[in-house]
C-alpha cells in the first residue's frame, strides 16, 4: 500500500497528555461528553421501568427499578472510545454487572454465547456474551456519582467500555441471549459487527 498523501501545512497538535497505551488508533481525547443518538431521547417513567433478561423468547428474570437499585452495585473508572473518533479517559460509572445480574437470576452461567440488547426508542446492539461477563460490562445507572441523565442514556445504559461506545446502548431495557450472533441497529447499517477500538473495527469489513 502506498504512503498516505501528506496534507500540506498540517501540523496537528497531539495532546501531550495523551498516553499512547490508552488512546486507540485514529482516536483523540476529549474532555467534554458528546451526545450522539439516532432519534428523540425517550422519556422514561421509573414507576414503569423494568430490566429483563431473556433466553431466546423465554423470560428469565425481570427487575423493577426498586429491585434493580437493590442489587449489589459496582463502581468502575474506565476509558471510553466513540467510533466518531473521540475518547474520554477515567470516566466513573456505577451500576450492576452482568455477572451480578446472572447470579441474581439464579443462572450459574449465561445460557447462550451471544446477546442482543434492546432499548427504549427501538435501538439494539449485539455482542458476544464473553464481552459482557467477567466484570467487563454493567448496566450503569450513575455517571460521575450522579444519576445518569436522559441524554446520556438514563435511567440505565449498558457500559461495555472495551468496545466502541455505540455498543454501550443507552436506555437499555432488555438483554436477550441468543445462540447465533445477529447484527443490531448500527451493525446493520455499515458499522462493524464487533467493534474493537484497538483493532479499529469501525465499519463492516475493518
Amino acid at each position, binding site marked *: 500500500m502506498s504512503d*498516505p*498523501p*501528506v*496534507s*500540506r*501545512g*498540517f*501540523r*496537528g*497538535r*497531539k495532546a501531550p497528555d495523551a498516553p499512547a497505551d490508552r488512546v486507540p488508533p*485514529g482516536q*483523540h481525547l*476529549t474532555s*467534554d461528553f*458528546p*451526545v*450522539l*443518538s*439516532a*432519534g*428523540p*431521547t*425517550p*422519556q422514561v417513567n421509573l414507576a414503569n421501568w423494568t430490566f429483563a433478561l431473556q433466553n431466546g423468547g423465554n423470560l428469565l428474570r425481570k427487575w423493577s427499578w426498586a429491585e434493580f437499585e437493590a442489587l449489589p452495585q459496582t463502581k468502575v473508572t474506565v476509558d471510553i472510545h*466513540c*467510533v*466518531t*473518533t*473521540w475518547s474520554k479517559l477515567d470516566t466513573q460509572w456505577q451500576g450492576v454487572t452482568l455477572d451480578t445480574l446472572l447470579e441474581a437470576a439464579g443462572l450459574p452461567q449465561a445460557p447462550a454465547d451471544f446477546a442482543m440488547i434492546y432499548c427504549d*426508542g*427501538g435501538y439494539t446492539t449485539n455482542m458476544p456474551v464473553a464481552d459482557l461477563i467477567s466484570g467487563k460490562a454493567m448496566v450503569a445507572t450513575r455517571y460521575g456519582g450522579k444519576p445518569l441523565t436522559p*441524554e446520556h442514556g438514563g435511567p440505565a445504559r449498558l457500559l461495555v467500555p472495551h468496545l466502541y461506545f*455505540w455498543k454501550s446502548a443507552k436506555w437499555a431495557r432488555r438483554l436477550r441471549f441468543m445462540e447465533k450472533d445477529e447484527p443490531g*441497529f*448500527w451493525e*446493520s*447499517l*455499515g*458499522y462493524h459487527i464487533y467493534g474493537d477500538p484497538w483493532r479499529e473495527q*469501525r*465499519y*463492516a*469489513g*475493518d
Partner: protein
Amino acid sequence: MPATETVVDAPRRLPWRTAEVREVIAETSRVRSLVLDVPGWPGHRAGQHVDVRLTADDGYQAQRSYSIASAPEAAHVMLTVEQIEEGEVSPYLAMDVLPGDKFELRGPIGGYFVWTAKLDGPLFLVAGGSGVVPLMAMLRDRVRAPNPGPALLLYSSRTGDDIIYRDELDRLAARGDGLTVVHTLTRGHPPGWTGGTRRVDREMLAALGFPVAASPRIYICGPTPLVETAAAALHDLGHAADRIKTERFGPTGGPP
C-alpha cells in the same frame, strides 16, 4: 496440489481514498466548503458522512467525521467544515486548505440519517448552525425529484452573517417547488429582519411544521441542545419517534 480456500462472504473494507481539493468556497467567516476530486468514489446518499484523515509531514495523523454537503448525483464530493475553536482538524480544513491540497477520505458512512428524492411525503428539516450540511445534501437531492413533496427547512443561526448557503437556499426556495425556508437568528438580527428571532422551540415547531397527520419525515441536525429540544417537542406534539431522525454534533460530533 492446487490450494483451496474457504470463501468467506466477508464485507469489503471501506478503503481510504485520496481526495484532492479542487475548489474552496468561503461560506461564512468560519465556514468553508471544499469541493473534492475523489477518484473511485462509490457514490453516497444524502445525509451520509465521511471520515477525513490528515497526515502531517512527520507522519502524524488525525481523523474526524464530516457530513457530505453535495447531492449524490453531483460530479464532486463537497464537504462543508466549520472551524471549531481549539479544534485540530477543522481549523486546517476551514482555514488553511488550498486547491491542489490532498488528504484522505473514507466513506460513505451511515445508513440511517439518510433521505432520497425517491421518498414521498413531506420533508421537515430542522438545522442549527453547521448542522445544515447533511440537510443541504437532501435539499440539493430534492431538486431532481419529478414531483417533490412539500419541504420545510427551519434553520437556526447565530446572526445573519453565520447563515451557511444563504444565497443557494434563497434560490432553492424561489423555485416554487414546495420548499419553504425559515431562518431564525439567536444572537441579534438586522433591521427589517422578517424571520425568527429566538432559538427553535416547541411553539415555533408547532406553528411552522407539518401537522402530525401529514406524517412528515423529520431530520434534525445541530448542536445537542437544539436537537434535544426539537426532537422532544416534535415527539411530544405527536410525531412518531421513528419518523424523527437526529444527528448531533459538537466539537467532536458525528453519528452514531
